[in-house]
């Protein structure tokens, strides 16, 4: 008995010591992410099973004490059922996927030659070239979207230039479609593609490529059998860095995509602000979160398997 009491006291003392002074400072990040990252996600998950109602806040409680000794648990799966049966939401997911895949592909096509040229450039100017890639990222993303509104809108730079040259009589519908949204996303996220590509291309041993040429391979073969496989980690990382934010993007499709480019991000916003339907917005967010988290966990697993294989 004595030893148990002693152990309990010792444990309590240790707990107190853990929570005092320096330890408290160390607990700050833990508490912060627990309260402001983990907790909100759980609340989101909870509300996605609630029912919409006219009240403040506009959703029903899942667990309720009824009169007497009844504890009622009401789980509403209706929000999720709507997501997978209503055409608007299915279309929203398809649009987001299509835009994200297209922009990731275009970023790769644009970013690879640039990253390659930077990696093979003179060492003295390499830092400046990289700096120039990242610099637009520091200016506000709204400004970058605005730049494309200015270029593409019916009375924008491109249309007024073409009309002045009498090439067209009516402004071309360049804006308010999914292509414009794609261009905006490509423009915004191109640096995210170039950086990982650069760092893996830079590591490629130039003599390997020369060896491929010496052994008689064409530039195409050299590219696909030597450069591509060696740059693969950069390609995967860059694609993930573009694809993930593109999937949940709100601002760019909202401003450049017009009314018909309803992506998931915009649907969440509309459900919340226009329809005041918190549960539907929450359910949409949970599904979107799954779409974002799944590719990342897949990549993580791959990395771990690779690390294991490397050992």
């Amino acid at each position, binding site marked *: 008995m004595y030893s148990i009491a002693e152990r309990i006291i010792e444990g309590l003392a240790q707990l107190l010591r853990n929570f005092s002074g320096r330890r408290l*400072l*160390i607990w700050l*990040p833990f508490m*912060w*992410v*627990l309260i*402001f*990252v983990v*907790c*909100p*996600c759980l*609340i989101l998950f909870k*509300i996605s099973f609630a029912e919409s109602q006219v009240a403040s*806040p506009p959703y029903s409680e899942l667990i309720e004490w009824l009169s007497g000794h009844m504890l009622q648990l009401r789980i509403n799966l209706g929000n999720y059922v709507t997501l997978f049966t209503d055409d608007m939401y299915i279309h929203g997911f398809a649009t987001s996927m299509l835009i994200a895949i297209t922009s990731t592909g275009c970023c790769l096509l644009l970013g690879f030659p*640039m990253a*390659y*040229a930077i990696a093979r*450039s003179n060492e003295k100017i390499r*830092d400046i*070239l990289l700096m*120039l*890639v990242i*610099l*637009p990222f*520091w*200016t*506000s993303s*709204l*400004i*970058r979207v*605005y*730049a*494309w*509104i*200015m*270029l593409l809108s019916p*009375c*924008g*730079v491109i249309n*007024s230039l073409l*009309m*002045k040259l009498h090439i067209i009589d009516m402004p071309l519908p360049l804006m308010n479609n999914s292509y414009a949204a794609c261009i905006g996303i490509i*423009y915004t996220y*191109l640096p995210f593609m170039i950086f990982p590509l650069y760092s893996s291309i830079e590591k490629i041993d130039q003599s390997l490529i020369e060896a491929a040429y010496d052994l008689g391979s064409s530039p195409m073969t050299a590219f696909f059998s030597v450069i591509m496989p060696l740059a693969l980690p950069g390609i995967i990382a860059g694609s993930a860095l573009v694809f*993930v*934010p593109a999937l*949940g993007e*709100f*601002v760019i499709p909202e*401003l450049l995509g017009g009314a018909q480019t309803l992506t998931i*991000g915009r649907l*969440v*916003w509309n459900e*919340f602000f226009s329809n005041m339907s*918190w549960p539907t917005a929450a359910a949409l*967010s949970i599904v*979107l*979160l799954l779409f*974002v988290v799944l590719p*990342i966990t897949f990549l993580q697993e791959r990395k771990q398997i690779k690390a294991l294989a490397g050992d």
Partner: protein
Amino acid sequence: MSRVRVSLLVLGLGYLFLYAPLICIAVYSFNESRFVSSWTGFSFKWYISLLSDPIILQATWTSIKIATMAATMSVCIGTIAAIIMNRFGRFRGKTFFVSAIAAPLVIPEVIIGLSLLMLFVGMEKLFGWPNRIGNTTVVIAHITLTIAYVTMIVQSRLHYLDHSVEEAALDLGASPIKVFFVITLPMIFPAIILGWLLAFALSLDDVVIAGFVAGPGSTTLPMIVFSSLRFGISPQINALATILMTVLTVGVISAAIVMYNRKPQDGN
């Protein structure tokens, strides 16, 4: 020779794509006419009308206050988190901790904003705090968003630092607190500055999260820009964008130069 030419062409076209739209904004901010289609003359009138707009000035002040507070807090918490991740070895729940810290990097902004607002509403119902959404909620949301970036930057700096200097100091009898302030902090200072700048820029840039958690009295600058962009081109926004681009570019380049000059000293 031809390979160099191809490389120059690729870089030229790439940087044209990155910079031509931004230069366009700056050029048209000096156009006297309201319309892009006609250039009627060089003028500063959009800058003058911008700087005499009380709503924009008020929003700019709000944004700067929020971004300063958020970046400073975020740097404090992020640095502690980076040290925990890098110097504490393995501990139970480390994977969970690291994932939770990094989560805001990948969670779409719409979801961060929505879930935080739901948290604030729930907290208000339970504890009566925060008693309404406003500046405080925006600062909290921006701290949560930017901690991840600060942690990653400071963490990678810590990763490349020589651990033995700290160990030597500990062996010679310095307390862990003293080791942190005398040895670790000066060595990771460039990363902290970079993290602060990035957090500041991200906070100054955010419109989606603020759109959810900002109250009526805490309209930030990006929110005003966003609502005016829905109506298309406006030369005032051109002027504002040009000012912002100039300030941020000068800030980033001078920070880069300072850090570039520090580099050789750190190597020793």
